[in-house]
């Protein structure tokens, strides 16, 4: 028995940064919005017991319950995919605020090069710079067009930062000054300066000072307690949807947030969505929520899965290159190096975004003429607050257990530093998302299947950026410097990086992209899809700043669509892939 509810004007699937921004912007404009969130309620008071590495970082307190839903994985299209039974390579958030609760707060603007990567690469290096099989394409929007939306997100979130000499040009300064520096960061900055690079403080969603955002929401000053990534903030000092856009939406009286509401399908007649079906996870009851406009604002994986499972948009076919839903799944290439020092640092103090960065090896900020790869990555040292369970870094050749391991892991606990990168990841035709033919979720629907492996481009970028990172550590005075080594294939088990992207990509051409530059589906006018799922490749930075900018852009698009209906952008058909 499905209970049919009264129609809502707009329904969002997921209430994290993207869903919260849509809710706030539309509700402020007088639009009635229903937010469906499959996890539970959370606010600052839920984090009084949060300084618990085991519960939050090791047992994944804030993450999705994989017994109900996970993905399957294989490296190559000719392998059998198997379920990701436990968390490993990347984490999937759940609950009100989504990954915006447990993120670290690194808030970047992608480079102008990222948005026009295909045109600019071809123009500078010719059309054959990347090997065959890479499905590189422009994003159908320029950095200059997106700049005001980045600005809006940064002001909502109160981002603390300073000018990045090699970064995307800014019209306004950051709303709050950079975080405090530390001896570790000073060492990185001095070493980078000595090498002729251009260091600056990492733009941070842990705020350097108390801040009231343009919507009147208060974000507190960060206390550098060292429990940030994978944790919630007990001070309300991390910028999250829960302390910003969600209360903004709720204060209007136009936003209804329903928790434990797990959307299983987007309902549609032909090419128009009519609403969503969801299950209340606490009672098992099924509901149909009719809506004029459906906005998918969940994680990369679920945005893609819902479209494929509901039969919306054209599924991507890796053999022909046709179709778009599931296409251009990318990751982050986490090149870097580890330095072991004789002296001790106060590594246990820190914050999620406490770091210093150089952008000299990001995007096309350096000449690739003599190099056999494109792009690069931001290179940073970060001081998150080092905790003891998950940090047992020892010099190469040390056994992983026993007397020597114990002695070395204790000796080096406060004596190693990392310099590492959010390396860019280029799309390849064999890296994609589709539905699994065998494994099901707890509702009996197919799991999403990930097919992904590293490419030669990834390997070369990794090696180059790791060597640059090692040079910085050497200059910082490390006794032993070990550049990271890439695994032969992507491995789903060891923890790596949560920045997965693609599947519902933005572009200027309806043939090769899923959404236009208002994040409106080309094939279904009243469905908007927002998230890192929109990235046509992954840039050399953390994704959230760009997701936030896209959400503000989409909110504007939805308000336009309410008045004009139909497609907001005229599709081009010039960059169709061969």
């Amino acid at each position: 028995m499905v209970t049919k509810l009264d129609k809502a004007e707009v329904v969002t699937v997921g209430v994290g940064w993207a869903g919260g921004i849509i809710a706030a912007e539309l509700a402020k404009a007088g639009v009635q919005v229903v937010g469906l969130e499959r996890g539970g309620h959370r606010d600052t008071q839920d984090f009084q017991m949060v300084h618990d590495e085991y519960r939050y970082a090791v047992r994944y307190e804030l993450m999705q319950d994989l017994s109900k839903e996970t993905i399957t994985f294989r490296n190559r299209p000719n392998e059998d995919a198997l379920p990701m039974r436990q968390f490993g390579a990347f984490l999937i958030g759940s609950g009100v605020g989504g990954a915006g609760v447990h993120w670290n707060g690194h808030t970047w603007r992608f480079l102008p090069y990222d948005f026009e990567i295909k045109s600019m690469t071809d123009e500078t290096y010719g059309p054959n710079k990347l090997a065959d099989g890479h499905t590189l394409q422009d994003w159908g929007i320029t950095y200059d067009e997106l700049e005001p939306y980045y600005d809006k997100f940064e002001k909502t979130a109160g981002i603390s930062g300073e000018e990045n000499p090699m970064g995307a040009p800014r019209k306004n300064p950051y709303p709050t000054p950079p975080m405090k520096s530390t001896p570790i960061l000073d060492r990185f900055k001095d070493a980078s300066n000595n090498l002729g690079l251009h260091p600056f403080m990492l733009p941070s969603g842990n705020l350097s000072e108390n801040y009231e955002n343009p919507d009147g929401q208060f974000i507190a000053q960060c206390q550098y307690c060292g429990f940030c990534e994978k944790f919630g903030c007990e001070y309300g000092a991390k910028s999250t949807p829960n302390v910003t856009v969600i209360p903004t939406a709720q204060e209007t009286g136009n936003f209804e947030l329903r928790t434990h509401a797990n959307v299983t399908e987007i309902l549609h007649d032909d090419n128009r969505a009519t609403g969503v079906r969801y299950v209340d996870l606490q009672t098992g009851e099924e509901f149909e929520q009719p809506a004029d406009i459906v906005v998918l604002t969940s994680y990369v994986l679920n945005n893609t899965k819902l479209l494929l499972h509901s039969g919306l948009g054209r599924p991507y076919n890796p053999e022909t290159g046709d179709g778009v839903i599931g296409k251009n799944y990318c990751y982050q290439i986490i090149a870097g190096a580890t330095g072991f020092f004789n002296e001790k640092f106060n590594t246990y103090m820190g914050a999620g975004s406490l770091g210093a960065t150089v952008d000299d090896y990001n995007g096309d900020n350096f000449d690739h003429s003599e190099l056999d790869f494109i792009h690069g990555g931001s290179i940073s040292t970060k001081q998150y607050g080092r905790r003891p369970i998950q940090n047992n870094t020892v010099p190469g050749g040390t056994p992983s257990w026993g007397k020597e391991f114990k002695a070395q892991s204790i000796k080096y606990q406060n004596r190693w530093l990392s310099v590492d990168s959010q390396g860019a990841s280029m799309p390849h035709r064999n890296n994609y998302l589709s539905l699994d033919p065998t494994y099901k979720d707890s509702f009996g629907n197919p799991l999403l299947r990930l097919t992904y492996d590293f490419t030669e481009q990834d390997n070369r970028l990794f090696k180059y950026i790791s060597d640059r990172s090692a040079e910085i550590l050497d200059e910082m005075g490390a006794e032993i410097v070990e550049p990271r080594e890439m695994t032969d294939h992507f491995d789903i088990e060891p923890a790596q990086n949560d920045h997965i992207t693609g599947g519902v990509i933005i572009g200027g051409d309806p043939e090769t992209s899923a959404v236009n530059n208002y994040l409106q589906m080309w094939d279904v006018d009243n469905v908007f899809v927002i998230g890192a799922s929109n990235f046509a490749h992954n840039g050399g930075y953390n994704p959230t700043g760009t997701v936030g900018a896209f959400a503000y852009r989409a909110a504007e698009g939805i308000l336009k669509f309410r008045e004009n209906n139909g497609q907001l952008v005229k599709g081009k058909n010039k960059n169709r892939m061969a």
Partner: protein
Amino acid sequence: MADEKEQSKMSRRRFMRNSGYVAGGAIGGGILGSLLGTNLLDTNQETAQETNDYNRALMFFTRQKDFDILSAATERIFPEDENGPGAIALGVPYFIDHQLAGSYGNNEKEYMQGPFSPGTDYQGYQSPLKRNELFLVGIQALEDESMNNYNTTFTELEGEQQDELLQAFQNNGVGIKGATSATFFETMRSATLEGAYSDPLYGGNANMDGWRMKEFPGSQMSFIDELDSEDFIEMEPNALRSHISH
């Protein structure tokens, strides 16, 4: 390093008083106020230790012998040495027993539906065994290998002999039912470190000695005033027990 010495002598109470955390007005309000309202500033350390002793009993293992084998293996993974206590003195075997009885041991938040297949080296954990079953199978295999190779029970082997067997498990050199020996070993290794270094509320890290060895101060509310110190600051650790009102 006068600063380091002075800091290490500083009591936690004094640290709290000296830190920016107490200047609550600068932080602004609600949560901080409510945290300060609890007796965050009381340590209750002695009481905690006494209470923990009752906690040192078995929730999962039904045979003491299995528990003793587990204890011996964890002590080889994380032995007592000049840095301080090993796994047994830290309470790691009890930590693991208690974890195996609950959500962790029963893989409650993990996908355990079939069909099962070993997969490639890059597809992660694929065993149909729940973790508590994996430990029982692995511990039995350790004992069987011990009897086969040395005709002696695992707990009575010399340390080096125990290491040889554990190394064989880590190298995937032993066949066990439903999983690989490396999976068992790596799971036990991780659980040992988790028991050594998690908050003492879970039954390991006795007296916060795991944290002391790593000079990790546990749960502290703020480092905003210490952040720019050039010298290493050693401070008395603090556990989550202090976050709750009694």
